[in-house]
């Protein structure tokens, strides 16, 4: 293990780790937004909302994330969508994880007892107030764990944006492996940063889950 080399290059990895965190955080926000739209759409009885949501979830869960990134980044300009690698990465990762998150969110919503809907109706609440004040607060606690699993998958999946030349952790590892010929050191460095990020996020999710879980 070449410690001197690690001490010399670790800063590049730390900076790249920040890019990984940044792109994952932005994609996570987009994913949550798309996830809510997808879930509400799939649960809707209006066909104009239901079918587009179903197609979205099915298409993005049924194809590889890498292909989705390539369509957006390389194919985008053909349909007038010229994006920087970073923006294309956020869009691709966000749309992809949004499809998975939509299933987690939908699962949480349908797990809430149907009597809650009836009761809210009986009290005179319309759909949106019922959703916002009665259903979602109860469903949210059920969503913490599945959405957390989605988020951890997203962080690991963010490595794919290195293929559209976003300079993040995996890109940096690859670059340093080919320039220093020290794969073990470079792998160890980048793995260290990934493990730190994922451990922190996992701890955070566990804490949230314990704080808000019902019973158990």
């Amino acid at each position, binding site marked *: 293990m070449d410690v001197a080399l690690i001490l010399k290059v670790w800063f590049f990895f730390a900076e790249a780790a920040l890019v990984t965190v940044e792109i994952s955080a932005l994609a996570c926000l987009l994913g949550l937004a798309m996830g809510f739209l997808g879930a509400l759409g799939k649960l809707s009885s209006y066909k104009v909302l239901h079918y587009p949501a179903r197609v979205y979830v099915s298409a993005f869960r049924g*194809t590889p994330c890498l*292909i989705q990134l390539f*369509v957006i980044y390389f194919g985008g300009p053909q349909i007038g969508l010229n994006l920087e690698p970073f923006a294309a990465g956020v869009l691709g990762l966000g749309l992809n994880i949004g499809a998975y998150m939509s299933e987690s969110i939908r699962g949480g919503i349908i797990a809430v007892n149907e009597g809650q809907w009836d009761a809210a109706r009986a009290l005179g609440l319309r759909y949106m107030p019922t959703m916002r004040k009665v259903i979602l607060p109860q469903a949210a606690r059920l969503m913490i764990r599945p959405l957390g699993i989605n988020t951890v998958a997203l962080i*690991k999946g963010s*490595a794919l944006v290195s293929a559209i030349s976003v300079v993040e*952790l995996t890109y940096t590892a690859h670059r340093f492996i080919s320039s220093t*010929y020290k*794969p*073990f050191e470079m792998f160890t460095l980048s793995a260290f940063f990934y493990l730190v990020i994922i451990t922190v996020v996992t701890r955070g999710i566990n804490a949230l889950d314990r704080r808000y879980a019902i019973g158990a």
Partner: protein
Amino acid sequence: MGLNFSQLPEYAGLMAIGAFWTIMLTVVSGVVSVAVGTVMAMARLSSRRIITAPVSAFMWLFMGTPLLLQLYFIYFGLVEIGIDLNAFTAGVIALSVHFAVYNADVIRAAIAALDPGQYEGARAVGLSYFQAMRLVVIPQALRSVAPALGNNMIALLKESSLVSIIGVMELTLSAQKAISETYRPFEFYIAAGVIYYILNAGLEYLLARIERKTALTR
């Protein structure tokens, strides 16, 4: 530059070859990952720390890092210690090991959840540890994890697209080859996406059938 799908039929053969190799990669890596995952799960449940500690560390490392990083390491990195793999082998190893870890995680949970009386009973009638595992414990555990393993296989099919990055011939690389000749990325990546979608639907159908056949009816 607009869209023009008229060049797709010309490259249908190339895409079909790519789809074939994607299926091969998924099947080979899938089988290896379940086999290796089962062994890892058994090792993880061993009563000896000298066996469990390294296996746990290995699983933690591979579950906490991206597949792409592991792929780079196996393909570009192992050369350093004299292991020069061709791209296909490196791809199969990376996919197999990555998914073996995830499979091991669910199989371990299933073995642990199994009534210990099954193992004790098997030992009591005179089976050795390996016979008890092979004939009694693992068949029951695998049956209860069929849905979870199926999900991992579906993920594997999609993640196999990553090996195109190190130059393994499969569906994504087929699309890239067609694009390098036609300069039509949108059309060919969408076409590849459609083929992945169909393969994915086929795999889901197959897994649902296997699940029905192996389901425990009580």
